[in-house]
């Protein structure tokens, strides 16, 4: 399919909306910068996957969603959760494994969920969210809800079987699903192009029966505009759609991965396409005062520092909770 170019004008002149979009990207970036600092300080246990450079995608996509719309995520889901409306401080509590975290400390970074805002969970299994997303959409349809489901996944997931199965499923039952492939060109330590044949995720989706569009995932306005259009089509009952958003991840796979095999020049080049900087330039060009953008940054810093500090100081979950939330019948006790 053709690449949809998003021009600032086409995205509408709603400066508030653009500013909100900018704020969300800044919050995601700052959330993860802060988390990474905490990780390096030894405060956060377990694996941590950050998404520097990819912030435009969840921010742009979720701008068109309602709270009762659902979202399934993957292992790199902080941005997805924040954009869907999750609370940063409660996320930090979970990253730290503390009482009051989204999963009561039982999930950690890779399993953040906030059902109250429709965030149905990150997932530790690549492509694990795809079948869940289409089923959620099928359930919503059965319940006669007009809520939709967004399914976020990486380019690596498009080589796993569920990519075929779930897209076909959504198409045959005309389900309200927006598939979003965040294509950062890499899956763990392997460049995805070396293990992906054919014309890529969008071509596959189109052939399977899900209309797909490839866009510049670092252009927040293009993402926002495309998502707005597709979400409207989906909500109108026209069936699933897909966005294939090209981007680049500045960092390694996990917080401990230096991605030393990568040419540093590639990373530097990618940073010049920073989605946050790009939208900032647009906003300034449109007359938004630099100071008010700085305010956004410092508010984000405050929010995240407070969240981090709160989590660091929070108590561990009580031992009894290890035995809770397993199952009702046949539950065991500590």
């Amino acid at each position, binding site marked *: 399919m053709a690449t949809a170019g998003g021009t600032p004008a086409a995205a509408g002149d709603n400066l508030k909306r653009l500013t909100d979009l900018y704020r969300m990207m800044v919050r995601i970036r700052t959330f993860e910068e802060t988390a990474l600092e905490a990780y390096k300080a030894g405060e956060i246990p377990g694996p941590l996957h950050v998404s520097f450079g990819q912030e435009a995608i969840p921010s742009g996509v979720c701008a068109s969603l309602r709270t009762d719309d659902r979202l399934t995520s993957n292992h790199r889901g902080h941005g997805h959760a924040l954009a869907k409306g999750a609370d940063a401080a409660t996320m930090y509590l979970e990253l730290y494994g503390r009482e009051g975290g989204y999963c009561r400390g039982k999930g950690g970074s890779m399993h953040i969920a906030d059902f109250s805002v429709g965030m149905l*969970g990150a997932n530790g299994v690549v492509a694990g969210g795809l079948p869940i997303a289409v089923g959620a959409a099928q359930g919503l349809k059965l319940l006669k809800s007009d809520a939709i489901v967004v399914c976020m996944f990486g380019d690596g997931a498009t080589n796993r079987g569920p990519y075929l199965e779930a897209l076909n499923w959504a198409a045959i039952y005309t389900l309200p699903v927006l598939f979003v492939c965040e294509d950062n060109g890499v899956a763990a330590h392997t460049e995805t192009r070396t293990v992906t044949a054919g014309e890529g995720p969008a071509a596959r989706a189109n052939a399977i029966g899900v209309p797909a569009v490839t866009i510049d995932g670092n252009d927040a306005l293009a993402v926002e505009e495309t998502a707005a259009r597709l979400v409207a089509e989906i909500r109108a009952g026209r069936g699933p759609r897909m966005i294939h958003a090209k981007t680049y991840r500045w960092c390694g796979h996990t917080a401990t991965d230096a991605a030393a095999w990568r040419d540093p020049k590639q990373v530097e080049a990618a940073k010049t396409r920073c989605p946050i900087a790009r939208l900032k330039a647009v906003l300034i060009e449109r007359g938004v005062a630099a100071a008010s953008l700085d305010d956004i940054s410092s508010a984000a810093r405050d929010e995240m520092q407070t969240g981090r500090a709160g989590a660091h100081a929070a108590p561990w979950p009580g031992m009894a909770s290890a035995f809770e939330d397993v199952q009702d019948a046949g539950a065991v006790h500590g």
Partner: protein
Amino acid sequence: MVETTLVEAGRLAVLQEMRRDPRVWVLGEDVGRGGLWGQYRGMLEEFGPERIVSTPIAESTIMGAGLGAALVGTRPIIEMRMFDFVMCAMDELVNQIAKVRYMFGGQAKPAVVVRMPHGMWRNSAAQHSQMLEAWFAHLPGVVVVAPSNAEDEAGLLVSAIRSDDPVLFFDPKDLWLAPGAIADGEIAPIPFGKARHARQGDALTIVTWSAIVPNVLAAADQLTSEGIKVDVLDLRTIWPWDQDAVAASLARTKRLLVVHEAVEVGGFGAEVIASMIDRLGPSAIKVAKRLGAPRIPVPFAPPLENEVRISPAKIVAAAKAAMA
């Protein structure tokens, strides 16, 4: 009582619950044509294609979609056609369904029933005959149900559909057409974790479940005719399972024989024995034996398959050996 078959008893249970609760629905291959064994006969006509959903051959997504639909508040019955094909959907079952509630700190309610007809069935060979129910007793987060007759099929299916837990429901496919009876009127739920005391006796405790139960009962009746009265406990659910009933029986008999169709090595029989030894102490038990299949895949040729099947004669022999 109404005379019926096991498959029909299950159908009536689903029918009753689908009429009761509009959030209950079925997904699986060919369910719109009644399912492979007629478990869903006539339901498409009554409930329409949004609640009786014939799916592509896509087990991963059948299982995973069932979970997703549960997460938004519906109550899916996931029909897997044959247990063996569940192997194509293990990530969705083991890593997702069994864990979401816990991983998300209680936010998720994976109220799915996974129906998995299992066991040997008319020379279907290694890929269509497996019984691996023991695996799931070892898997936190799920209930494991394995009925052996029409009444339990119906009552346990009602409980499964109403349960907020993910329930792995092992239909005994070799017994689909076994005649049985269910109570008139509404099918009452049968609680999980309560064994059925199928035969009474003081000589030996036989613990069993699923498709092999009729053979155990035939063996018990033969033993009775020889003057040996055995206690038979049909566990019906293997997680949770009725440890109290087994312990109470053992307190009387001091002799335990666990009979299952599955491979003996690493089967749930080992768990029954280890638990009872732990609970009562070795000195309280005179003998504790298992009778299960040898550790070989299920062969196709009828005489070889029979070699793997646990016949009443084998059960009688094992019981006598346990009495020696």
